[in-house]
């Protein structure tokens, strides 16, 4: 459903963010996008969601297609309306607003009240803690709860394609596991997921397919199984052999 071809992104002072990235995401799948810091993972998500403008960056060549139509010059809000939801890097919840209002913001692109109500109930089902504390200021949530809110908020726009940027960052192994399970659940309802992760082990454990970005282009790609077994992946992203937890190891 999503196809990125030969994408080049340039930041203001001629710094290349992406140099010919290729990617495709099939409907209903979970695709993991891996890579080192600065490899261009977040840049790619920004390009897809039209947010490059906030970082003085722009697409210089290549194209992004969603369900066959080009997304390159579409405004961020319109991209959301076309069914792309996103939980951003660093969660970026609205700390001053209540949890409920955060979800309302997530749902601005949906007009149907009943459907919105339904989605909200679904989010509270997925993350009961959000329902319990719905009137609290979101800034007082813990890191894990904030991540849940960020995902829940992204779900409020009823996306066909959900982009998640490092949902496991800074979270305890147990929470990481929870989040991973929720992602799998969301996927089961038919939502396609593009998962950007530092934690390759976590990502590849639920992904169908994976891409590894290196220096702004795809260095390695394949099915999750292939990647898990790849030697260079083992060395660089999956780390040694300590079995207690695979959190970022």
């Amino acid at each position, binding site marked *: 459903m999503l196809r990125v071809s030969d994408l080049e992104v340039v*930041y*203001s*002072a*001629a*710094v*290349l963010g992406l140099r010919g990235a290729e990617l495709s995401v099939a409907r209903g799948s979970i695709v993991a996008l891996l890579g080192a810091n600065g490899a261009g993972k977040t840049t790619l998500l920004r390009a897809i969601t039209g947010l490059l403008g906030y970082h*003085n960056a722009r697409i210089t060549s290549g194209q992004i297609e969603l369900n066959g139509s080009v997304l390159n010059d579409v405004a961020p809000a319109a991209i959301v309306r076309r069914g792309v939801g996103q939980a951003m890097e660093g969660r970026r919840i609205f700390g001053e607003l209540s949890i409920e209002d955060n979800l309302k913001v997530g749902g601005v692109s949906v007009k149907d009240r009943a459907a919105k109500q339904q989605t909200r109930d679904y989010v509270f089902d997925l993350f009961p803690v959000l329902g319990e504390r719905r009137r609290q200021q979101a800034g007082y949530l813990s890191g894990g709860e904030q991540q849940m809110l960020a995902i829940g908020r992204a779900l409020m726009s009823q996306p066909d394609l959900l982009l998640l940027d490092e949902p496991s960052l800074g979270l305890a192994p147990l929470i990481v596991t929870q989040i991973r399970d929720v992602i799998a659940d969301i996927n089961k309802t038919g939502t396609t997921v593009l998962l950007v992760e530092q934690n390759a082990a976590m990502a590849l454990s639920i992904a169908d397919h994976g891409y590894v970005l290196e220096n702004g282009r795809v260095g390695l790609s394949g099915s999750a199984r292939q990647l898990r077994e790849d030697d260079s992946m083992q060395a660089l992203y999956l780390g040694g052999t300590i079995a207690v937890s695979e959190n970022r190891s």
Partner: protein
Amino acid sequence: MTDDLRLLRSAGARIGAALAVAAVVVTPLLISSDFWMSVFIAAGVFALGGLGLNLLTGYTGQASLGQAAFVLIGAYTAAWFGADKGWPMLLWMAAAMLAAGLVGAAIGPFALRFKGNYLVVVSIALVFVTVHVLQNWDSFSGGFNGKSVGGISLSFLVDFGDLSIFGKQFTPEQGLFYLTWIVVGLATLAVANIIRTRPGRALQAIRDRDVAAEVIGIRVARNKVIVFALSGAMAGLAGGLDAARVGFLTPGVAESQLLLSIRYVAVIVVGGVGTVVGAIVGALFLGPLPELVEEFSDKINFTVPLVDQPLLKDSATSEGIMSNAVFSEILFSILLVVFLMFQPRGLVGLWHRMVASLKRRGTPTDDAGPDIEPVATPH
């Protein structure tokens, strides 16, 4: 290795400094007009007040629209001690700095509690309260009717009011020009030194991230109070010098003093926020602006197509949309907006960029990251 500690690191900077000193020495020798002297004294006053404001806003990140209040306090204190009591120059200068500095220190604690927009409004409140006090404290300020600063002493070692060097007799305006710019020079040197040493680094740390600054052992509260006092003291001294130039003080209305504060901010914005020489550059650019408009009004005058009239009036009853004075005010407001929009690092930033682009001309490096803009206020 410690080469980076030198005040003037490049040959260009050293030449620039030498030229600046030469300009101060030579200008009164070339210009005898009381008017142009007055313009440059006023610019010096703005530079001095701006220097203080830059320390506060540019280096410490404390936004303030209260600079005019300190200028007023300094001016009145100088008038009271220097003119009414007849104190010698050094003493009334010290008194003006002390009075404005103390008020600055008193504002400091508010700055600890308020940040950003709230602090701006507190600083506006200071202007309102200062004007109110000066309007009503007749015995000190002369109240609404103002106060004469006649006979204030400009003498320390040499008499700047009656300056004579190698037989050349200078006018009082020329003398005051030397005095003002000597003070500006010394203040600039002091600020430059503070900035490159421990206290100045602390201020910049507070600007960038105050919680982290506290945690690495910088006493944020104490430093903020000191910098408010320092900034106030410099504005106070500027006020004292301006009092000597104008010879007469009125508190005016609070709104017009607020405009004066805005001018001080504009000086550092146009010059360069968070740069040592920014205030001087800004003052020298904005100070003579209305006079330049006056001078070149013929060249500026064109017909405005929208209403089919010439832009400027050349006399009260002739055609034209606005007078030179209004034009320079409008120009001022437009410059302020344009600088903030397109050159937030001011003229100094523009200069650095030009030098940098000259240096690397022909060899564009693609790792030159995006320039970050100075953080005036972390908010």
